[in-house]
């Protein structure tokens, strides 16, 4: 008797679970209108594995890998596109970038390259990388310059990508971080 009731409960549970799933499709997602690709990268890759270095694959390879990761990590389509935008920016830089002296705004560069996706300042930002509040005071500007030009020089397992930044832009970033 107990056996029969267990079977009945289990068989009844199937359509109920399926119904919940169907209903859930109609629920409006509370997704942000603008999604930060670096933040999606920070929030999801390390759930299972070390974040892979962006230099490891070409842009066309990433465009095939990301649909695989979309399903594996339960990313939305918009989140997947945002990560691709971030990878595209890191690999290609910004073709429309202003190269004059006025472009050397450390805070603007910090936001443009989504540093906050993986690092935090004043408690705001990601956790994949270390907090940057006192990085210049603790390590010095020369370390910072070397780290951004060769992110794996002091830690071979670091997933930090090499950003398409000039020496002057790195110095502007260092100045922003040291005065923030």
């Amino acid at each position, binding site marked *: 008797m107990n056996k029969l009731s267990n079977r009945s409960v289990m068989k009844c549970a199937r359509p109920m679970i399926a119904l919940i*799933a169907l209903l859930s499709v109609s629920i409006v997602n509370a*997704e942000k209108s603008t999604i930060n690709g670096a933040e999606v990268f*920070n929030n999801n890759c390390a759930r*299972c594995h070390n974040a892979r*270095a962006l230099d490891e694959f070409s842009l066309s390879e990433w*465009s095939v890998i990301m649909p695989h990761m979309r399903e594996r990590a*339960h990313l939305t389509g918009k989140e997947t596109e945002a990560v691709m935008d971030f990878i*595209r920016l890191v690999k290609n830089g910004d073709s429309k970038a202003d190269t004059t002296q006025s472009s050397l705004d450390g805070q603007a560069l910090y936001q443009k390259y989504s540093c906050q996706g993986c690092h935090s300042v004043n408690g705001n930002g990601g956790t994949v990388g270390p907090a940057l509040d006192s990085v210049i005071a603790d390590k010095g500007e020369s370390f910072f310059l070397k780290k951004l030009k060769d992110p794996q020089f*002091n830690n071979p*397992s670091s997933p930090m990508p090499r950003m398409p930044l000039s020496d002057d832009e790195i110095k502007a970033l260092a100045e922003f971080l040291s005065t923030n």
Partner: protein
Amino acid sequence: MSIKSFAAMTVAASLSPAVLADEGDRGRFALGGYGDVKYETTEAADSSAYSARFVPIFLFSLNEKMHVEAETEISINEEGETEVELEYADLHYFLTDTTTITAGKFLIPFGQFGPNIHPSWINRSPWTPGIYGSHGSNQAMEALLPILSDVGVAVQQTLVLGDHQKIFIDLYSTNGPSVEADDHAEEPVEGGHEEEEVGHAELPELAFEATSGDNNKDKAFGGRVAYAMLPGIEIGASYYNASYDDEERLDFNAQGIDINVIGSHYLLRGEYIETETDGFEEEEGETEIHTFKRDGWYLQSTLQTGKIWSSLAGTELVLEYAETNQLAEASRWMVGFNYWLDARSVIKVAYDDTDVEEGEDDQRFAVQLSYGF
């Protein structure tokens, strides 16, 4: 699948011009995967051996809606023969921004180890958690759910609740398990077996290997619902049910809960699984169905020492405990040290001690180099 057939398929794929065609930064094909080399000693088998695997993953993006993927595991067995196993081969159709339909042979979304953690460059231990079986290696602990993938269809739904909160829903239907070919489930035996309940018949042995056939019309059905507070925590509950005999009178059920905590310098992963396996037994001349219940769990903690002390960059300490209860009781401690050569390559050194209630205990030592590519 023979190695010749696999090689022919690979060559055919590599010669196809469409495979290599790129359009701007939008690609069509990518090759990823992982591999490992392991040296392992086991006291129970009184042996030590080197082993190696190569596990390529073939990814194809057909268009923005359709993605095809296949993972093959190529390894050498103890007789020196090359074995090729199809881990998964499926097509994802991105129905909406948040809904994905999958068809083919796919990783079963039960818990977190099977679908996400099992690749050796991701798993912090050189061994599979005891409750999931050994998957090609040897282990003294009797697995609760030795299944990673099966053939069928699945639907996945992601609900975004806010900036950092999501709910994941996975539902699937597959062929499910069948009776092991040399099983004696329908021939009740008398005492003396280590997987036998007092006064009851032997625990049936099921074949979980995925096939493109089924011994009955009943399909396995299962699902997982999880809540994620990104990037730090994911908690899930899983369910699996299938009739496994020809007459669809005997069921196998599994329920589980899982947790994954990601800290700034530590990881905590664990799963608890309960299973119920029906079996026939003779009771005063009549055949009755008896349900065998088992449960077990594991908890794996990783302290990322390299993130705490810069002089130890790339190092981790791993501690894992696992146990199975009710029939084939066993417990296992594992301690390990990992050194990451880069973000996707790791050397693991580990020792485990398995205590089997009614059977031979085991102690194992392993050094494994694992790499993702």
